[in-house]
């Protein structure tokens, strides 16, 4: 995912002088192509995230589209008020890029576990969340964000994720992208972010894969809630899957979005991480399984 991100950014920056990349002293082995091609539009803010987000907003107020790149919680929680007041309130084109979404840095400990980030970012009224499920969705999200500069949060995994889509899908905020179509009234899995790979594998190994639909929603936001009822009502059940805590997460967002139609609520089943993973350390797959993102729980 990281490589797809930097490829897209470098390509876009070649024809768009307003694209700037700011890093918080992180990105070794990832950001060099941009820094090499566009040294005057690359800034390392040092280990100072609040200033990083503040000056990114200042640059954006002068017409730059600023990508701010760092790991996990550093470009979000560490500078939450700068995101709220400077970026989101002023509706400025700053794209916050966090690598290590979910438990991708599981072994690095709780400081590096991004399992509450949706909760923070989705309460910002102008913020677009981009949580792609594979490298193709990364490219799709990047193209959407570059064509529609706005406050945005791009949540990436790490590196080496397989492509689920065979080509770059069409994406729009709040719109579900179809991966597997089990027809009207089928049981549906709706993922955001890296859980797409997990569920895709699960369904592929299922004895009766045609029973299910699989959709992902790489772009969502507070504003995109209004389009959810018409998408949920087509299906018998919708299981949301996310590598984030339930509180403030994606499934909760969908429940809120559909709460105007109480009959829909019984169809939605949230599969998220149990908070017992907070403080645990281990490989991403191990912790995801501990947190409940395993076959038995996902299918029940």
């Amino acid at each position, binding site marked *: 995912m990281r490589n797809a991100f930097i490829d897209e950014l470098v390509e876009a920056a070649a024809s768009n002088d307003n694209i700037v990349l700011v890093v918080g002293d992180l990105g070794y082995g990832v950001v060099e192509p941009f820094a090499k091609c566009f040294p*005057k*539009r690359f*800034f390392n*803010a*040092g280990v*100072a995230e*609040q*200033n990083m*987000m*503040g*000056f*990114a*907003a*200042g*640059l*954006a*107020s*002068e*017409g*730059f589209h600023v990508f701010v790149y760092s790991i996990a919680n550093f470009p979000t929680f560490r500078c939450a*008020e*700068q995101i709220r*007041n*400077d970026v989101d*309130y*002023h509706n400025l084109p700053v794209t916050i890029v966090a690598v290590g979404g979910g438990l991708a840095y599981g072994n690095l400990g709780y400081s590096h576990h991004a399992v509450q980030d949706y909760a923070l970012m989705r309460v910002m009224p102008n913020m677009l969340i981009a949580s792609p499920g594979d490298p193709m969705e990364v490219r799709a999200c990047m193209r959407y964000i570059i064509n529609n500069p706005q406050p945005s949060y791009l949540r990436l995994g790490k590196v080496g994720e397989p492509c689920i889509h065979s080509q770059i899908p069409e994406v729009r905020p709040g719109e579900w992208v179809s991966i597997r179509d089990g027809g009207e009234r089928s049981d549906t899995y709706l993922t955001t972010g890296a859980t797409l790979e997990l569920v895709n594998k699960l369904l592929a190994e299922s004895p009766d894969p045609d029973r299910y639909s699989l959709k992902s929603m790489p772009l969502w936001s507070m504003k995109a809630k209004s389009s959810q009822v018409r998408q949920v009502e087509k299906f018998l059940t919708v299981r949301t899957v996310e590598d984030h805590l339930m509180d403030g997460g994606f499934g909760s967002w969908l429940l809120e979005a559909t709460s105007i139609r109480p009959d829909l609520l019984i169809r939605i089943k949230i599969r998220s991480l149990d908070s017992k993973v907070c403080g645990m350390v281990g490989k991403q797959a191990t912790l995801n399984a501990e947190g409940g993102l395993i076959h038995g729980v996902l299918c029940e």
Partner: protein
Amino acid sequence: MLATQKLANRIRKSSLKMVHRAKASHIASALSITDILAVLYGEVMRFDPVDQNYEVRDRFILSKGHACVAVYSTLAEVGLIPREQLETYGDDFSWLMNHISHKVNGVEFSTGSLGHGLPFGVGKALAAKARAETWRTFVLLSDGEMDEGVNWEALMFASHHKLSNITAIIDYNKLQSLDSVENTLGLEPLIDKLKAFGCSTHEIDGHDHRLIAKALSHTTNEKPTAIVAHTTKGKGVSFMENRVEWHYKNPNDEQLEMALAELEIAYA
């Protein structure tokens, strides 16, 4: 009397009337920065009163957003907003919020939470430098605000990138929200700290218009500028000067009359 001194006097009177009408706080913080604003808008800054988006305008950011009545009054004085708009200050749904608002013509950035103005200004200065543009960025901060670590992050960054096009002005009135700066979280030796962070520094009387103009006009090729402006909180109204309670109180009818009368005499 200098034209900017007359302007400052009008800003003070207007600010007093605004907080009186709206029963709002922070009049002393506004009076503290009035002379600096009068020199900025009356002499130093480049702007177009009929076009708030004039591309080569100098950018001004009020980081101590609670002192907004002084800026709103200044904007009305120089023609960026209509005077009548000042009378909506503090009203329900008014654009003139009780902390400075970018929804008001001529205001670059909303603040209210301290420590946001300087980093944002650094971004603007970086943008100007990247595009080889000549406009400058001025950020006005409070002294208590320097407690925020992010300001020191921003100074480090501005120095490292040789942002000589940004000027930070610290309104050093020595009073915070509950007590003096010294008793709250001492800033001294402030000028040495700013120097150590790589700034070109000036230490001035923040009510002396000639000194303010001189410090604001001075730039170097290599360093950001930091001006420590020694000021008096509540300046110009004797019973408000150096008194913590005027961070919060608003003048009643009688006090407003007394304050306006003092300003008439002082600048008669």
